[in-house]
């Protein structure tokens, strides 16, 4: 802003930068390079926008219900969305029971949205979470209240993605906080164990942990004892996320001035009292925006469970175009779930920005 004003003041009388024409001139045509860029961008937009509108809204036959109809009309295959959205959203869950994963997703989303609002930040929220998670479990598994039992191998689609992400962050968070505290402890053995864990996990790709959970975890367990595939993937996600959360929280802890601890010491608080009442509340407040980013990464990373054959949103999107009639429509299917992922991740990142602004109000002049 200041930059623009400065240079325009230096080079031209002020009249030229006023008004709509002046805005155009200073914004878009201030220098030959700038004008060239403008022309280039406008050209790209003129080429791309009509083509996109044509591809998504003009060409396609909105009434078509088959792949053949899509092929005939060209453009985006809305018939795929119409015919396969239940498979993509809920996976292999029994067709007639799909209201259950739908309701479970709504409950999960509702509790997440409530947790995002400051007016609900009170102890009762914890209780609400317990109730919500139990309800989700009951709805998904069934077997009680007259609901038929559905084994978790048949779960899939969006609810599975949401469950993996929510449980992932929920369990990884306390674990990560403990690791962060351990890494800053002055007991050398505790510190060493935490550092080794964090660096080891952060140094390897998530895929290798997922492979480890799928091929090595069965070897680790005593004979005759097995954990199912979904739980194994969930464990890998938790172990992975905890290491990242630990580093985020460590950053927050480092930002707390020493005087806070000394003050707490002088009150005679024990270590855990100091952490719980003085240090962690401040450190976590500082780390909230970064924690939200970690949550976004986790949400995106849940898509990797495809690789060990778990039927999440991504795998469901791939399965939707597997049968021969729908072959060649992968891109359409991917665009559909890309929009879903985008909506979730983008709203989280906006939320994190708003939160950051709000929490920093005290620092602003």
């Amino acid at each position, binding site marked *: 802003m200041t930059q623009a004003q400065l240079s325009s003041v230096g080079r031209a009388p002020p009249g030229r930068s006023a008004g709509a024409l002046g805005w155009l001139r*200073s914004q878009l045509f201030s220098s030959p390079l700038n004008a060239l*860029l403008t022309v280039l961008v406008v050209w790209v937009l003129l080429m791309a926008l009509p083509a996109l509108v044509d591809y998504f809204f003009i060409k396609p036959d909105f009434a078509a219900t088959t792949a053949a109809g899509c092929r005939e009309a060209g453009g985006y295959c809305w018939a795929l969305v119409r015919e396969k959205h239940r498979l993509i959203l809920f996976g292999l869950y029994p067709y007639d029971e799909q209201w259950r994963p739908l309701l479970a997703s709504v409950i999960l989303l509702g509790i997440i949205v409530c947790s995002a609002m400051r007016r609900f930040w009170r102890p009762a929220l914890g209780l609400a979470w317990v109730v919500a998670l139990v309800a989700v479990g009951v709805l998904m598994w069934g077997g009680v209240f007259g609901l038929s039992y559905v084994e978790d191998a048949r779960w899939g689609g969006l609810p599975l993605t949401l469950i993996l992400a929510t449980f992932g962050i929920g369990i990884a968070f306390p674990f990560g906080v403990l690791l962060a505290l351990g890494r800053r402890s*002055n*007991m050398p053995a505790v510190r060493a164990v935490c550092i080794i864990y964090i660096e080891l996990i952060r140094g390897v*790709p998530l895929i*290798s942990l997922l492979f480890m959970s799928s091929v090595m975890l069965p070897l680790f367990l005593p004979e005759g004892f097995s954990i199912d595939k979904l739980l194994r993937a969930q464990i890998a996600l938790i172990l992975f996320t905890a290491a990242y959360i630990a580093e985020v929280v460590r950053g927050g802890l480092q930002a707390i001035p020493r005087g806070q601890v000394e003050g707490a010491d002088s009150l005679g608080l024990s270590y855990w009292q*100091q952490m719980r009442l003085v*240090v962690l509340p401040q450190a976590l407040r500082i780390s909230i925006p970064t924690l939200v980013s970690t949550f976004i990464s986790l949400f995106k990373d849940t898509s990797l469970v495809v690789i060990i054959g778990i039927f999440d949103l991504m795998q469901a999107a791939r399965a939707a175009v597997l049968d021969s009639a729908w072959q060649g429509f992968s891109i359409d299917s991917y665009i559909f779930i*890309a929009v879903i*992922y985008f909506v979730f991740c983008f709203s989280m990142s906006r939320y994190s920005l708003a939160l950051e602004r709000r929490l920093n109000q005290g620092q602003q002049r």
Partner: protein
Amino acid sequence: MAGQDLAPSPRATGARRARRWSWNDPTTRAIIYQVGLLLLVGLLIWYLAHNTLRNLAARNITTGFDFLQQRAGFSIGESAIEYSPTDSYGRAVLVGLLNTLMVSVVGIVAATVLGTLLGIGRLARNSLVSGLCGIYIEVMRNIPLLLQLYFWYALVTEVMPSARKAFSPLPSVFISNRGLRLPWLQGNAIEWMLGGLALAIAACLLLSHWSRRRQEASGRSFALLPACVALLLALPALGWWISGAGFVVDRPVLKGFNFQGGFTVTPEMFALLAGLVTYTAAYIAEVVRSGIQAVNKGQWEAAASIGLSRARVLRFVILPQTMRVVIPPMTSQYLNLVKNSSLAVAIGYPDIVAVTNTILNQTGQAIEGIAIIMAAYLVVSLSISLFMNWYNKRMALVER
């Protein structure tokens, strides 16, 4: 160092005094806690190892890395070194590692260039440019990389025409559902040209060192960029001339259902590189943007006041200072790119994870396989961060 701030300080309370073995003594408590933790971790490891050995014995799997010498028996789509199914598992792992490294290096260079341009574009005064860069960044960052890889792969294999109807934007360049085919050079001139290129790079490094020394000593500047470009073009050309212009251009030709000759970028490699580069570039753009914004506004104003154009301010004043802020977060983006290249396994590019996974399925050597993958990534990650730390130290502001 900073790690000692927060925990209770046993030193303050009585490390010097005679030790009283009581629960109220922080030193004693610390020792008990640590012994307890180590015991717990040790027990856990022992328990897992014990179960694992028993399970392996029950399944008749021998442990150890001897299987690496066995014949692999599977083929690998692309490899930088010679490889055939009769080679050993060890060589297959090496092929996978080289593929990972190659994709990582190409990806890091391309993502840095694209990301820097996007980051500068995000801050452009031109609101069309900055808006478009902003949209790109948001879209890329909020869609899982794996989905983007699948998207690129489907784009090549499903939307591109078959080899017979290949799309040819330039003569002898073909884009089809078999990937990208480019003309390539054959013959001994290539070695001479590569030698010339290496010589030119060395000369450029020396020249830049010399020109900086001269500028520091005398204030006279030297047109480094044109000189380097000239060297980079001239020396390979000289190599080509010395070798007696002895090379032929190997042009891809359609034979039957596929192309023969030329250089191929397979759909797998294309999808992996396109996905990694466009995805990581969005993150690098944000790193560059925040780096530029971290430079004090006074620097812009001072540089503008001596009459530098905006482009020159950016080049001579802002970007050099940005480098200092940017190196640590840039390092983590590079590390992320290397780790994300492991997603190659999903689209069938033979990187180290894909190759090791195949071996693991063939031999049942799960533990060794995972250990190889993890060790490879740990070594690569550590090397990158060591190098970047060294570079960071060199670039960091030297104060009194």
